[in-house]
């Protein structure tokens, strides 16, 4: 059954957080603020890509940054993704911290040589003398009724490449902190922004990376920016998701609770490296897991997650790890998008399969 992605019901709001540093903002605003602060804090940071200067990006993530930080720090490039990413390599070699943008995920393909053969390998090739502190921002995944090539799920492709790290935030708070963290690392990070979540608002504690407790779970991870996060605690099974699917899984958990099913939701956040310990902790407790992602099923990250769970929890698992994913088809256009992206019903069916599994 098609449904649109709605605002997180469980991520809190400005009235129940209270702290002076907590502000209510959209993910777009959180990302914009993070970039603004990174530019201010590190004079070697440069932001560039198509339309990210005067226009402020087609999603306005770089809005106002050129006016504030100057045309040398935030600039438009010719329309050529290989050029943008290849240029990033040279800038990194010259001591800069480039934060390039490809306008849409599907446009990363023309730059794949620069990403895979150059950015990912230069540190290795040069025996650590030419680090590639590049944060590649990629508006990612579907859910906005976009035409072909404007919605893709490239996480498995990127995560499979040695030399790259991959992260995807699911809410404004993490978007702010993870981007600031990524943009100060010495290794290349592919930063996958869930574009369907750009305009959803939530609380952002700019002073602390620790996520504030959700109203019903009391979850606080202490502020780690390197691993996964339990965004809702539960006893009966774990839903593993990232990006836009986290919010949908939280919705599913609310609905399942009405039937007495207590669902834990684990936001993986880092898709490389994957937080295997967090998977083991959560599924070790719930003993059942369903992985949810928008990318096609075959060779997707769901298989990797399932294997990591099997390795740590095989003896206590009550059912095989289930996957609810996109299908092995090209990302469909808007009208078919809701049939492709895991919806609430398909995720509930996945939960049902796991709960009703009986050993043959």
């Amino acid at each position, binding site marked *: 059954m098609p449904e649109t992605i709605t605002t997180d019901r469980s991520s809190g709001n400005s009235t129940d957080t209270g702290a002076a540093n907590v502000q209510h903002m959209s993910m777009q605003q959180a990302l914009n603020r993070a970039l603004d602060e990174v530019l201010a804090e590190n004079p070697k940071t440069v932001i560039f890509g198509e339309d990210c200067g005067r226009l402020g990006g087609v999603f306005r993530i770089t809005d106002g940054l050129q006016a504030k930080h100057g045309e040398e720090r935030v600039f438009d490039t*010719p329309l050529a993704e290989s050029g943008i990413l290849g240029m990033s390599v040279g800038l990194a070699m010259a001591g800069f911290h480039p934060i390039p943008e490809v306008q849409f995920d599907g446009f990363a393909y023309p730059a794949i040589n620069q990403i895979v053969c150059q950015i990912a390998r230069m*540190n290795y*090739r*040069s025996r650590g003398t030419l680090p590639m502190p590049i944060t590649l921002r990629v508006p990612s995944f579907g859910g906005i009724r976009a035409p072909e090539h404007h919605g893709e799920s490239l996480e498995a492709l990127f995560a499979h490449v040695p030399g790259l790290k991959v992260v995807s935030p699911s809410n404004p708070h993490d978007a702010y902190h993870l981007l600031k963290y990524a943009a100060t690392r010495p290794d290349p990070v592919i930063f996958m922004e869930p574009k369907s979540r750009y305009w959803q608002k939530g609380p952002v504690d700019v002073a602390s990376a620790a996520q504030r407790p959700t109203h019903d779970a009391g979850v606080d991870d202490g502020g780690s920016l390197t691993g996964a996060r339990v965004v809702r605690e539960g006893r009966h099974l774990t839903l593993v998701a990232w990006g836009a699917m986290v919010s949908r899984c939280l919705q599913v958990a609310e609905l399942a609770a009405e039937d007495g099913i207590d669902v834990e939701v684990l936001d993986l956040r880092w898709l490389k490296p994957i937080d295997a310990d967090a998977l083991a902790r959560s599924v070790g407790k719930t003993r059942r897991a369903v992985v949810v992602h928008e990318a096609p099923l075959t060779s997707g990250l769901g298989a990797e997650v399932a294997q990591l769970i099997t390795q740590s929890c095989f003896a206590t698992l009550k059912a095989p790890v289930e996957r609810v994913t996109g299908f092995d088809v090209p990302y469909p256009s808007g009208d078919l998008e809701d049939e492709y992206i895991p919806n609430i019903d398909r995720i509930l069916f996945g939960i049902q399969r796991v709960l009703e599994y009986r050993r043959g």
Partner: protein
Amino acid sequence: MTTEPVLAAVDDDAAPLTHHQLRELYTLMAAVRHLDSSAVAWQRQGIIPGYAPELGQEAAQVGSGYAVDRTRDFVFPTYREMGVARAMGLDMVGYMSTHKATWHGGMYNPLESRFAPIQAVVAGSVLHAVGWAHGQTLSGAPEMGVAMTYFGDGASSQGDVHEAMNFAAVMKAPVVFFIQNNGWAISVPTERQVAGGSVAARAAGYGIPSLQIDGNDVVAVFEATRSAFAHCRAGNGPVVIEAMTYRRGPHSTADDPGRYRTLEEERLDGGEDPLERFKQRLLAEGVADAAFFAEAQRAAEDEEEAIRAGIADLGPRPGAEMFSLVFQEPTPALQSQATSWREESEHA
């Protein structure tokens, strides 16, 4: 063939080369010629698994590399720039280690040598040069460094070369695009590779000044490169140099040119040997004598022996480097794989 001076700036220091410099250029060319032909022999002897010879391109490589100022410039090579590396004074054991398959990018430090790692995806590093050069503009250093990127007529077919020239021209980046047109992209001749008459001709489409030069004349190559560097340093943006030369040997030690050209064609198309041609000039001008050439040859042989010994002494790299050099901050998964590898390979 003539150099077409169309650059906006000239080097104030562009004095004619001194006799000492001319002799130095010859010494470098002789060293490169001997090391290059020796490397082919090393491959036949099993010392190295493969090599990409540059026989006939010594003038193009030494002449251009000689113009590089290692205190501020940066060179982005492909895999056939041994002569440039030598002219820039690189540690040649470190350089040759790539051809020994010791490490993909060589055992030299690119930040110290100002010579980026060898690049097999031709044209991939042309964009890196533009990025590095734009970094010089952003840094606003008074003594602007220039990026020089090498590629061939074959690589000029890659889309990245278009993107690089376009970016460089739009951003007025201080880049010298140095094309060694050696007539062949493995088996495909230039006329089946390059549309539009020449690679240099394409520069006009980007508004970049270009020089098509005799790549077998080391002095012409040096002077053109020096002018191009001056043009870039003065803030005038990029320059395209197309050095017309000839790859006298195979593409690599695995190649068989007999499948696509005859010895007679090689002899006619190759023209005059750039090393012999320069020798005759130095003799005719009284810059050097027979004793000098004998000494240059002896120095080249000594150097090759030292490099060969250095290569032979290069043991295999410690396996742990496979894991420790992927990231600046290794991932837990990679550390775990390194641990497993160590336990299983050492039967612990």
